[in-house]
């Protein structure tokens, strides 16, 4: 009797599922649509990567790293652009990371969050993160004009624009990393007689470093792939020497790619594709490092 009762209940439930459940037409259609969207997005990526690889593989040799740009594609390489990218990213990191972390620490740990001015800043940092990169190029350009600096093609000038571009991203990532550190950790530190500054520097900030590192690396990889503001700041030059300092002239990989794609000869298009592969590998490597850091240190309490 009892068994029969339970059996009936189960039967009815299963039947109910079958009518509007996961094997009926509508959910299957929806699932199919989702898979199609995913497929479509992946298709673009695969085509893009595959054509770039096919075009550029032939020129992905040592010459790309050792040669300077030249009028004949077979003698040309991206050496100054590669070095330039490294210099610019280094300068960007030096400017943006300390400033971004310090700003985030102030906003998260010390400022009064109820103060209207601080809330105004907070909203605007979110806005800044969404501003098109070329605007930062224009901003830097007008700042240089005000300062009367005529020579724009310097590593630190490009880095300044990129630093402003990624500063909001670093601030937001750092704040989130700090917020993930439990309040109890801060209280424990303060209850031992540590000052708020000691608590931040010795406890909260070190605990947040994995999150900060992840966000910062992702931000730097965005800066590495950026061309627009640098084009505006005179990064598009024909360089026949190695960039060798923060005040040196420079060009970067994205700009070099932009330059070469605009040339009529096929050889330059191959070079552009080869440089794209290199840039792609660098970006994937940086993102991989960020992901490894995130996974390794994820949730320690």
């Amino acid at each position, binding site marked *: 009797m009892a068994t029969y009762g339970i059996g009936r209940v189960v039967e009815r439930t299963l039947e109910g599922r079958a009518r509007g459940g996961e094997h009926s037409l509508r959910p299957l259609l929806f699932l199919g649509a989702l898979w199609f969207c995913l497929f479509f997005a992946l298709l673009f990526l695969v085509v893009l990567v595959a054509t770039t690889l096919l075009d550029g593989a032939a020129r992905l040799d040592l010459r790309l790293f050792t040669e300077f740009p030249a009028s004949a594609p077979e003698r040309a390489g991206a050496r100054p652009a590669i070095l330039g990218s490294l210099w610019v990213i280094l300068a960007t990191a030096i400017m943006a990371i300390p400033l971004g972390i310090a700003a985030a620490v102030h906003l998260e740990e010390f400022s009064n969050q109820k103060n209207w001015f601080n809330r105004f800043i907070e909203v605007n940092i979110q806005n800044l993160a969404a501003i098109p990169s070329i605007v930062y190029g224009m901003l830097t350009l007008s700042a240089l004009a005000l300062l009367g600096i005529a020579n724009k093609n310097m590593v630190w000038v490009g880095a300044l624009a990129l630093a402003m571009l990624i500063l909001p991203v670093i601030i937001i990532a750092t704040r989130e990393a700090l917020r993930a550190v439990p309040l109890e950790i801060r209280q*424990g*530190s303060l209850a031992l007689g540590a000052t708020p500054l000691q608590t931040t520097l010795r406890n909260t900030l070190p605990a947040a470093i994995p999150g900060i590192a992840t966000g910062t690396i992702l931000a730097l990889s965005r800066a590495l792939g950026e061309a627009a503001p640098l084009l505006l700041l005179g990064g598009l030059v024909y360089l026949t020497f190695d960039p060798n300092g923060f005040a040196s002239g420079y060009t970067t990989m994205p700009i070099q790619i932009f330059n070469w794609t605009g040339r009529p000869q096929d050889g330059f298009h191959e070079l552009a594709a080869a440089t794209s592969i290199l840039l792609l590998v660098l970006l994937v490597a940086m993102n991989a490092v960020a992901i490894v850091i995130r996974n390794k240190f994820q949730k*320690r309490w």
Partner: protein
Amino acid sequence: MVIHTAVRTGASLPDRPYGQLECEHVDVYYGSFRAVTDVSLPFGIHEVTALIGPSGCGKSTLLRSLNRMNDLIDGARVDGRVTFMGEDIYGKRVDAIEVRRRIGMVFQKPNPFPKSIYDNIAYGPRVNGMRVDDMGDLVEEALTKAALWDEVKDKLKQSALGLSGGQQQRLCIARTIAVKPDVILMDEPCSALDPIATAKIEDLMHELRDEYTIVIVTHNMQQAARVADRTAFFTAQVDETSGDRTGVLVEFGKTAQIFENPQDQRTEDYISGRFG
């Protein structure tokens, strides 16, 4: 394990405690809300004082006002006087940092720092700039006093987050001891622990009583009866006109008296399980 003496009673405990830490007509506000009203209470030197009472009666709030941890909450304010060795800890020239060093605190949830066991203990002395001849000795001493040394002596460099909950809580007690405070405040230190870990912490309190003044907030009346020399019973009083709830001190006395011979009907009702 050493068998500890039970709660001190009768003759070994003076009738009036010598209050190392004392509340005098203390009100605690959060903004305009008065969480605790007019509490006067001495915490006897080298005694364990338990604060008991139903949820929302302000005992944790009161505890947090004893070492100015309430300062960290926006809008929290203390009226009246809290004196430590006769000095008002809310006085103008008093440094809250120094107050917290002298009056340590152990929290409800174990909160070890995401550092090694060694660094957890060494953290307090380091941030306080204490002159320490040999940090290793100090770490050993603190861990020994917290009855944790034997369990962790071979893994001092390992992360404190790998310890069990009970070990973590004893580590937090060791960390507090390491800065050599005079008073240790404990905010329901066993509520997140299993009975065995709880028993270890309770044993520990009996030992620590010889050197420190201890104030413990607990929801567990048996625990208060087991560890406390004196007990203060709080309840939430509802204002007839405004309907606001506020915590008030109902009765304070030796633990044996509170549990065996309560003077106030509300205490008796609570202890016999009739409310709360």
